[in-house]
């Protein structure tokens, strides 16, 4: 007989499903933005971009073995990084293009809002699980080291790398959240992010 849902398990499932929808929307928007970005920046869509410093990689080894907390913490760190990277892209966009290509600027700003919202959503999930939220305060105090001054072409390539990786992360986040939404045996007894099977 299925155990009655405890209120926090139901809330967690609700947060996970809302997170999944948010990540799905984010992915669709990133893909649209990627096409516009490639065209507007005159890049070759097939260009291979080396790993860009500071961009969190979505690919992870032994994804299955991650605990729920690890998933949330890695997701949160990634989207905080993307928030900073997108904010920098937006700043560079304004610097380089001014009022031209305002459409791309607006799309970037909208995506930045989504990423910020998703990061907040992940924090909610961590709070729900009584997990401390990694201090962003320390990050803000020192703040990430100022990125090296890139040439304009390097900036364009980095932007491409950021958007491509963000699209990958959105896919991973959906899978992570689906994993979290599954009731694991342990949760039946003691709600909280037990070790994943």
């Amino acid at each position, binding site marked *: 007989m299925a155990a009655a849902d405890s209120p926090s398990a139901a809330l967690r499932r609700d947060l996970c499903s809302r997170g999944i929808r948010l990540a799905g929307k984010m992915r669709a928007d990133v893909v649209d933005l990627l096409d516009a970005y490639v065209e*507007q*920046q*005159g*890049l*070759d869509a097939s*260009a*291979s*971009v*080396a790993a860009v410093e500071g961009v969190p990689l979505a690919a992870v080894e032994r994804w299955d073995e991650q605990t729920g907390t690890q998933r949330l913490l890695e997701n949160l760190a990634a989207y905080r990084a993307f928030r900073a990277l997108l904010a920098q892209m937006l700043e560079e966009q*304004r*610097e*380089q*293009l*001014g*009022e*031209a*290509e*305002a459409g791309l600027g607006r799309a970037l700003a909208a995506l930045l809002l989504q990423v910020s919202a998703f990061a907040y959503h992940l924090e909610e999930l961590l709070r729900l699980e009584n997990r401390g939220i990694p201090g962003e305060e320390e990050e803000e105090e020192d703040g990430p080291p100022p990125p090296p001054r890139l*040439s*304009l*072409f*390097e900036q*364009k*390539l980095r932007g491409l790398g950021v958007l491509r990786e963000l699209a990958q992360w959105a896919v991973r986040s959906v899978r992570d959240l689906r994993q979290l939404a599954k009731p694991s045996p342990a949760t039946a007894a003691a709600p909280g992010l037990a070790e994943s099977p």
Partner: protein
Amino acid sequence: LGDPQNLKCVTHNLHKMLCTWDISSRGGRGQTDFCYTTNDLTPQVCFKTKERRVEIPIPESSITVTIKSSGTAFATKFVIRQKDISFVPVTPHILSLTPDFPTSTLNLKWSDNGSVFPYGLDALWQIQILRKEAMEVVAQVTYNSKLTQEDVILSWNWTSDMPLECTSHYVKIRCYINATQFVGPKDWSDWSPVEVIPGKDTEPGGSGVFPLDPVVAVGSDLTFCCVHEEDQRIMNMTYGSKSYTMMQLSSRSHAIRVLNASVSNSSGTNVVCRLENELEGSVVFVGYAPDIPQNLSCETSNFLMIKCTWKPGRPSGLYGERRTKYRLFERTSGKNVSCEVNEVNKDHACGFPVLPDQKTYDFILGVSNPIGQAQSSLLVDITQRVRPKTPEKLTVTGNNSTSIQLRWFINGSFVEIRLLCQIEISSSHSERKLHNVSMPGRKSSTYTAQLNALHPDTKYQLRVRCSAADHFWRWSDWSRGVEQTTSEAP
């Protein structure tokens, strides 16, 4: 020792000459007696030397030289005339060779050694620029100067058709002096030692595409190069979406040549160098220098701020930090204002504060972007360029069967002028009439007028606009309308 032969004399400075000779048979370097005399009246000058070269004064016309090597019975006599003496300037030396990478310009400085000559002379300098590992001559230029018996440092600029980073550039110089009074043969000096500006292809880790992120004028012919590591194979170089034939500059540098570049899009045109496992690139912004601003016009609506407007002309095609920037400079006061202009929309305007006790403004609108600059000027008496703000709060303050009193408010200080206001009166059964009224201007004040000779029991639509009375410039916009019906005849 054998007999001296082949006596040759060369002068480098038209003062002295250096004479050298051979000895007919091999032998050690024994003592030689060298004597010369310029003519029969002057005593012979003699000295001993072990060298086979002697520096002696240049004769007015000719000189008789006798040379006697040790161990020979007789001296050998030579007569050297001025026409036998060749004049070869001293080899010049480059004082400095300074690169300016952003403009791909080399600045060359050297001394003209003018102080060694007894009088002023015309000098020709031949400057050679060489490039690539094979040191190919890419430019040879002749530069003229006048020697003035002083050492003058000469300076000369040369702009390369490719970025200086692309490969090493070498420079050397030589001199020819057109000494017309000197009858002997004249020749070029030797080339100076070569000076080099090393390219990035000589630096470890110097790879990249050059020039980096340049801004150039539409129609330019451009050379881009890709500097890479020795072992890196270069696949291709593209400009925008087009691949170009590459020229090899060195084992670590390849270049492409783009002719008559067209305007780039707002994010610039990418120049991409595809290496085996890496992309290198640069972004070039191709645009126009700013046009001279057209129809520069300035007016004030409130005697607090002057608003200047103009037509920018052809868009520059440059955006963001490369956009065209505008500054309004007023000559009389020396005041300078930076104008915030949105490069995308067509209307360009700039605000300048009305200055106390200043009616006449001598404006210069300066326009610049990385490609060029332009300016327009305008001399204006601001009291003759008044276009008041739209009259507000038009209200009827009283009426009877044949007249209506109106009141309205205009924001702004017009104490320096008289205002002319025009009231438009229309009703269903009479044509639109315009009633003009003038009054002294005041500071942010209300104004009144009375309309007479109206028809009783008639509904009227009324609105007002104003301008300067004495020097009409432009009407304000019409105020909002009001309606009023005159009362019935008594």
